[in-house]
């Protein structure tokens, strides 16, 4: 908008300057005749030279030499006033042209070009002072014209300088209305834009409010779902535990306890998921630590001192991986508690979970009695079947090493889930 404004303004200024030059050249023509008819041959040639310079200025401007065009005008006006004031005398009224100098200056330059305006104005002021001093000091012998011619010249100077002033005033008045029109248009556009923006803001606020409400509803629903899931798991777990009170058989009681622990490991997973900010990944370290504590508590009646040493990297798993992983950890620790330390009062379990370039490595060891990991055993043990299923679910490579009296070593490698 600003660029358009400056461009339009500059074009109007150049046009006005050119017209001013044509008008001045036209007004100077009668002087040539008067001077020539009064035998002032050289001054009449000088006047022709001045006219030529006034015509040169628009030519330079058309060719794109705007600065030279303006300099020519400044020189030409100063030279014309100085030369003819000295030649024809101060009282010939040539200096009257200098009264249009401020208007000429503002026609030549924009208000922002302060230095150029000051320099140009200074030349006119200096010119006037010199002309006046020359007149007062009588430094030159003036050409003495006939009184009638003198009066005609004075009248012409007065009338023509007034004409130029009128021309310039009309230009500035037009220019002013041009500014006002341009500003009014710009203002109207701004008002239209402002209304559009206000409408857009209102629309966006409405959308934002709607989205916020939807989000709040979804959060409430999610929280409600979590609450329901946890309550349902609590019901199942509670029923299994309650059933356990009525079961006298130790084997059946153990099965119920194992089932309850599996439920608890899933419930704990939901708890961690609900706590997690991302709502789709689970922080494994804190999860496993809590699970280990829970399993320890559930076997606290066994009165055995089993120390679980865990070294877990900061790993977050998505729910679809965290679920089989958690059940697998639960199964392994439960197996160690149930079988590995049957004939011992104390034992150790070593649990590591590391992040590698390829994915994750889970390593589980105990220093219990170990077992014969024959194919037949793998097929009949539910725990082993479950562990294999969990490993498959994780798309991992599983390795199980165990010999009687040498403990158990289970290793699982699986890749990062890149589905998301």
């Amino acid at each position, binding site marked *: 908008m600003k660029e358009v404004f400056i461009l339009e303004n500059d074009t109007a200024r150049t046009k006005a300057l050119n017209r001013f030059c044509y008008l001045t050249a036209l007004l100077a023509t009668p002087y040539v005749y008067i001077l020539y008819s009064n035998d002032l041959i050289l001054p009449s040639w000088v006047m022709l030279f001045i006219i030529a310079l006034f015509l040169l200025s628009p030519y330079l401007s058309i060719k794109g030499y705007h600065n030279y065009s303006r300099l020519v005008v400044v020189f030409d006006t100063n030279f014309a006033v100085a030369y003819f004031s000295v030649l024809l005398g101060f009282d010939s009224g040539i200096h009257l042209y200098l009264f249009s100098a401020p208007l000429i200056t503002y026609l030549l330059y924009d208000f922002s070009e302060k230095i150029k305006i000051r320099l140009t104005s200074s030349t006119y002021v200096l010119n006037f002072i010199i002309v006046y001093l020359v007149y007062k000091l009588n430094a030159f012998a003036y050409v003495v014209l006939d009184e009638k011619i003198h009066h005609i010249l004075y009248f012409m100077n007065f009338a023509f300088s007034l004409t130029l002033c009128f021309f310039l005033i009309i230009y500035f008045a037009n220019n002013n209305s041009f500014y006002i029109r341009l500003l009014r248009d710009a203002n109207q556009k701004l008002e239209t834009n402002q209304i559009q923006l206000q409408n857009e803001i209102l629309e966006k606020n409405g959308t934002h409010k709607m989205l916020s409400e939807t989000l709040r509803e979804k959060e409430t629903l999610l929280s409600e779902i979590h*609450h329901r899931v946890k*309550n349902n*798991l*609590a019901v199942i777990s*509670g029923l299994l535990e309650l059933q356990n009170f009525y079961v006298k058989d130790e084997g059946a009681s153990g099965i119920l306890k194992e089932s309850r622990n599996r439920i608890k490991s899933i419930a704990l997973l939901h*708890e961690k998921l609900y706590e997690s900010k991302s709502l789709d990944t689970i922080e494994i370290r804190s999860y496993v630590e809590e699970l280990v504590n*829970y399993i320890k508590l559930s076997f606290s009646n066994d009165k055995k001192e089993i120390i679980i040493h865990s070294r877990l990297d900061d790993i977050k798993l998505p729910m679809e991986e965290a679920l089989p992983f958690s059940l697998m950890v639960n199964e392994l620790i439960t197996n160690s508690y149930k079988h590995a330390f049957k004939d011992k009062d104390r034992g150790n379990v070593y649990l590591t979970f590391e992040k590698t370039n390829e994915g994750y490595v889970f390593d589980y060891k105990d220093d219990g009695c170990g077992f014969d990991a024959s194919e037949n055993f793998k097929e009949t043990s539910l725990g082993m079947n479950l562990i294999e299923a969990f490993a498959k679910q994780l798309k991992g490579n599983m390795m199980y090493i165990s010999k009687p009296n040498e403990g158990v070593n289970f290793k699982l490698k699986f890749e990062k889930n890149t589905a998301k």
Partner: protein
Amino acid sequence: MKRILIVEDDFILSMINKKHLELMGHQVVASVTNGLDAIEAVRAHKPDVILMDVRLNQGMTGIEAMEEISKFSDVAVVYLTGNSEREFKERASKTNMLAFCIKPIHFEQLSEILKNAK
């Protein structure tokens, strides 16, 4: 033996908890489903311990109900909750809280908590 009030809006869980507590040798003085009934039940039965669900379907939450109860009774409370958000815990700890248990509750753990209650 402790005299216990159960505040739980899930009837099945409430029944399971009641059975467990009775099998542990405690007496369940009442089972209610909302905060207002809990306040009334405390006035009426003066229990030793309240087993309070934090999230109740109607009206006030378990913690809000306990804040009201604390104005006239120093009964101890065991909170049961589906989530362990810090803001709940912090607010709950300002009441006469024995424990803040995450569902599903481990009844052996609950037994220990009740044994240590005054």
